[in-house]
């Protein structure tokens, strides 16, 4: 084993000297993280817009719409409301791109709703489709709630015994709203708008999903890891090409030490690569990897898996070029199958099942698990165990194949 460390140290020294270690383990992952930071908005700078708001009604329903429904957007940090004095002023603000969109509540809005007559809210928009879409969805949700309220009131009046006579008339003669006092109306409205007695508690696995930033950070990390670690696996072929393999095998060391040395160098490069990726994506795109000790454990397991696969793949090649090509093909295939390009939750069921044969899927699953607050070792232990098993299995097969080649060339 000491010989393996001596060989690994020499390989790393050579890789540092020819700068390939710096390029593959540091600069390239750093560059990838920087590139992704331009594509994926950091979590700290989430979407924000502002709305010009004209309230021509000043009634109960306009206050609910603006103060409470749109108020949630304000308290959530998504939007600011800019009151204006007229619809024309709102149009002017939108036209000048001072705001993302405008909301115009017409005079008589609340009265019309109370009377059950049609009314409308005008959404003004121009160059900010997201702001417009949010405003449109918000108003539509409010309109749906109002519709539900109206339906509830109508149903109540139609079915309540003596409701019509108690109110001084029949439902069919003067209409329900004409006979309902304001206090009753408010009570019914409040009861409809209040949360219902039944709520949904979703504890499915899908709830454990990393943020977009974390997903892309983890995806590019695991994908690139398979490229970075192949350098160690290729060292055996490089020794053969350079003529030094015979001299290594003539030394009083086990043939397996030569292979293990290459694998150890690959592990070293892989760990540096992953560390750079984790730190860079955390800083640059706000990826949330989870508790550092658990992330470290996951990274080690992923590196072992990558080195194992690279070692095995390289045993089928006769030249470094051939091995490099095959490693790229395998790395890309595993990346696609493993869901690094498209989240498995958005892919077909078959892909989700196929992905389980890849280290990538288990790595990404563990990253999802790490996104849950209070995550512990037990949460990622299955993924880590499977990654390590994959590494040992493929690496062990690679070792056996390499040894057979070494001693009977």
């Amino acid at each position: 084993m000491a010989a393996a460390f001596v060989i690994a140290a020499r390989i790393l020294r050579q890789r540092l000297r020819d700068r390939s270690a710096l390029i593959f383990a540091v600069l390239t992952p750093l560059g990838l993280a920087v590139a992704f930071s331009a594509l994926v908005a950091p979590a700290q700078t989430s979407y924000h817009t502002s709305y010009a708001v004209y309230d021509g009604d000043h009634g109960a329903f306009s206050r609910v719409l603006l103060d409470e429904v749109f108020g949630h957007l304000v308290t959530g940090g998504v939007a600011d409301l800019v009151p204006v004095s007229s619809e024309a002023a709102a149009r002017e603000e939108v036209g000048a791109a001072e705001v993302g969109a405008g909301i115009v509540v017409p005079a008589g809005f609340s009265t019309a709703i109370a009377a059950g007559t049609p009314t409308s809210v005008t959404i003004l928009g121009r160059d900010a489709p997201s702001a417009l879409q949010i405003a449109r969805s918000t108003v539509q949700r409010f309109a749906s709630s109002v519709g539900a309220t109206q339906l509830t009131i109508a149903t109540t009046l139609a079915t309540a015994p003596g409701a019509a006579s108690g109110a001084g008339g029949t439902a069919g003669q003067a209409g329900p709203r004409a006979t309902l006092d304001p206090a009753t109306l408010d009570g019914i409205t409040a009861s409809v708008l209040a949360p219902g007695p039944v709520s949904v508690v979703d504890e499915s696995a899908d709830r454990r999903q990393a943020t977009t930033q974390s997903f892309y950070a983890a995806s590019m990390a695991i994908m690139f890891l398979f490229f970075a670690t192949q350098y160690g696996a290729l060292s055996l072929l490089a020794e053969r090409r350079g003529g030094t393999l015979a001299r290594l095998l003539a030394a009083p060391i086990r043939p397996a030490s030569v292979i293990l040395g290459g694998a150890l160098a690959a592990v070293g490069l892989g760990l540096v690569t992953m560390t750079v990726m984790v730190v860079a994506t955390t800083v640059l795109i706000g990826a949330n990897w989870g508790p550092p000790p658990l992330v470290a454990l996951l990274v080690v397991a992923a590196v072992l898996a990558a080195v194992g696969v690279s070692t095995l793949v390289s045993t089928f090649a006769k030249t470094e070029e051939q091995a490099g090509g095959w490693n790229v093909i395998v790395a890309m295939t595993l990346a696609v199958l493993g869901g690094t390009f498209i989240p498995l939750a958005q892919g077909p069921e078959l892909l989700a099942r196929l992905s389980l044969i890849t280290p990538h899927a288990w790595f990404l699953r563990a990253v999802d698990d790490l996104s849950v607050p209070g995550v512990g070792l037990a949460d990622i232990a299955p993924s880590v165990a499977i990654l390590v098993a994959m590494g040992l299995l493929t690496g062990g097969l690679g070792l056996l194949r390499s040894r057979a080649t070494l001693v009977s060339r």
Partner: protein
Amino acid sequence: MAVRSVPQPREPVPTQDVTVPPAPPARQTRSSEPAADAAATAVLACSGLRKRFGERMAVDGVGFTIAPGETYGLLGPNGAGKTTTISMVCGLLVRDGGEVFVQGRPLDPATTDVKGLIGYVPQDLAIYPDLSARENLAFFGRLYGMSGRALRQRVDELLAVVELADRAGERTEHYSGGMKRRLNIAIGLLHRPRLLVLDEPTVGVDPQSRNAILSSVETLSAEGMGILYTTHYMEEAERLCDRVGIIDEGRIRAEGTRRDLVALVGGRDRVSLAASGDIRAAAMAARAIRGVEDATPREGGLDLLVVEARSLLPRLLEAVGDAGASVRSVEVVEPDLEAVFLHLTGKALRD
């Protein structure tokens, strides 16, 4: 010491089993040792080595011993089985048959400690071009269990021996071919092996470096190191080797001291004709002359093995001319290992 001529499956020229009286070894230290004692104390004793690659039998029953301080040469053309033989001797290759003992201890590819007794210098340069000479030496030294001050001292010592101390910190990719060769040999000497195996160490080396390498081998041998030296250069074998094994097509055809081997030719001369025209017809015509034992056509001429070249030469030139060849020059050389090889195999000892 006995000389043996090994029977061949295909005899291109008539040979006879020859046994010459035991010749005194080149070195006084060995001359008094009986053969049995020499085998028992041999640095290397291998026997019956066999290796087949597919349909081709690369090595077929090769065996020899090397005593301490003895330089044993394996002389043969490229593809004769020299490298395959030493790959089995060094434990790089699984044998199909045979045994290898180093200092009396058995060796196979799974052995680790016995390999530490051998210094191996492969035919191809086995150094890392992006490391310096000092780093190369230190790396291989560590693989042989050396470390710390002892390793540093040994590295310095060897750098001085191979005259690379001045450029020890420079990457070897900037070295000349000769410097790389010297470093290649130095690595094999790092751990002070009992047996040094040199596989054609002077291939592609300039004359000055070649001479330096040969001198180093002579010095090491004088210091008591057993040396196995493969070459296809007759001059090197004649200069360095106490005993030579002539190998061809995976078999040792004969072995012994230079004097013993030359005696196999029986005082025949080697005549080299530079000629043009119908060389094959000239060879056939030459063979018909009494006293010409062999005539081998080659590009640009003929190699002949003759009895009494001086008396035969006029008739020979006449016959060759009559056969349609035009002779430009004639070279007559005394019997040497090349002549022995030609005699034993019917082939010239060249690439």
